[in-house]
C-alpha cells in the first residue's frame, strides 16, 4: 500500500519563474493538504483540497494555487517565485471525516535562486 508520494524530490528555479509540484495521496484517502516548511521551522498550512475544490486556505498569497483531480491527486502551483519561497513543500492526505490524522509525503525541496 503506497503512502503519499510527491514529485519531484528536488527542484531549482529562478526568481520570477513558475513551478508545479505534484502529490498522490495514500490509497483510500480523498483529501489533500499542502504545507510549506522553511528551514528550521515547523510546517505551515497552505491549503486543503477535497472533491476537487479548495476547502481551506492558510495565510499565503494568491501566487500559491492548487488543483485536485478526480483521482484525488493534487498539484501545487507557485507563480512569480521569490527567494523566500525556498522551502520543503509537504503534501499530506487524509479522509475528510478522519479529522486530523494526516499522512505526509517526504516533500519536494524547492530552491529559488
Amino acid at each position, binding site marked *: 500500500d503506497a503512502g503519499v508520494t510527491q514529485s519531484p524530490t528536488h527542484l531549482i528555479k529562478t526568481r520570477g519563474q513558475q513551478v508545479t509540484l505534484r502529490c498522490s495521496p495514500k490509497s483510500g484517502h480523498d483529501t489533500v493538504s499542502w504545507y510549506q516548511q522553511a528551514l528550521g521551522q*515547523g510546517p*505551515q498550512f497552505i491549503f486543503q483540497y477535497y472533491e476537487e475544490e479548495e476547502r*481551506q486556505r492558510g495565510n499565503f498569497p494568491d501566487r500559491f494555487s492548487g488543483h485536485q483531480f478526480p483521482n484525488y491527486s493534487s498539484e501545487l502551483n507557485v507563480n512569480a517565485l521569490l527567494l523566500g519561497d525556498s522551502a520543503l513543500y509537504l503534501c*499530506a492526505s*487524509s479522509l475528510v471525516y478522519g*479529522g*486530523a490524522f*494526516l499522512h505526509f509525503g517526504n516533500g519536494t525541496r524547492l530552491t529559488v535562486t
Partner: protein
Amino acid sequence: GESVGLHLPTLSVQEGDNSIINCAYSNSASDYFIWYKQESGKGPQFIIDIRSNMDKRQGQRVTVLLNKTVKHLSLQIAATQPGDSAVYFCAEIWSGANSKLTFGKGITLSVRP
C-alpha cells in the same frame, strides 16, 4: 495570533535514558494535539495523539501528557535509542479547522551513544 511553540530548540540525551520534550500552546480552543517525528529528508511521521478530554496517553515507549490548565504538552520517550534522533513537532487543531494543523517550530533530539 494563536501559535504552538516549543521551549527548547535542542535536546541531547544519553542512549538508554528517558527523554522529555515540552511544548506550550496558546489556543485554548484546541481540542486535539499530535506529536510528529521528522527525520532528515523525510516528512513528519505521526507518533502519538491526545484529545483535550484526556490528560495522559501511552503508546509503545512514548507517553504524551496534557495539562490544559497551563496549556502544556509533553512527549516522554522511554529508553531513548539512536533511532529516536530526529526533530519533534507538536501540533494542535481545534475541531472547526478539520485537519488544519498548527505546528510549533520543532526541537531536535540528539541521542549520544
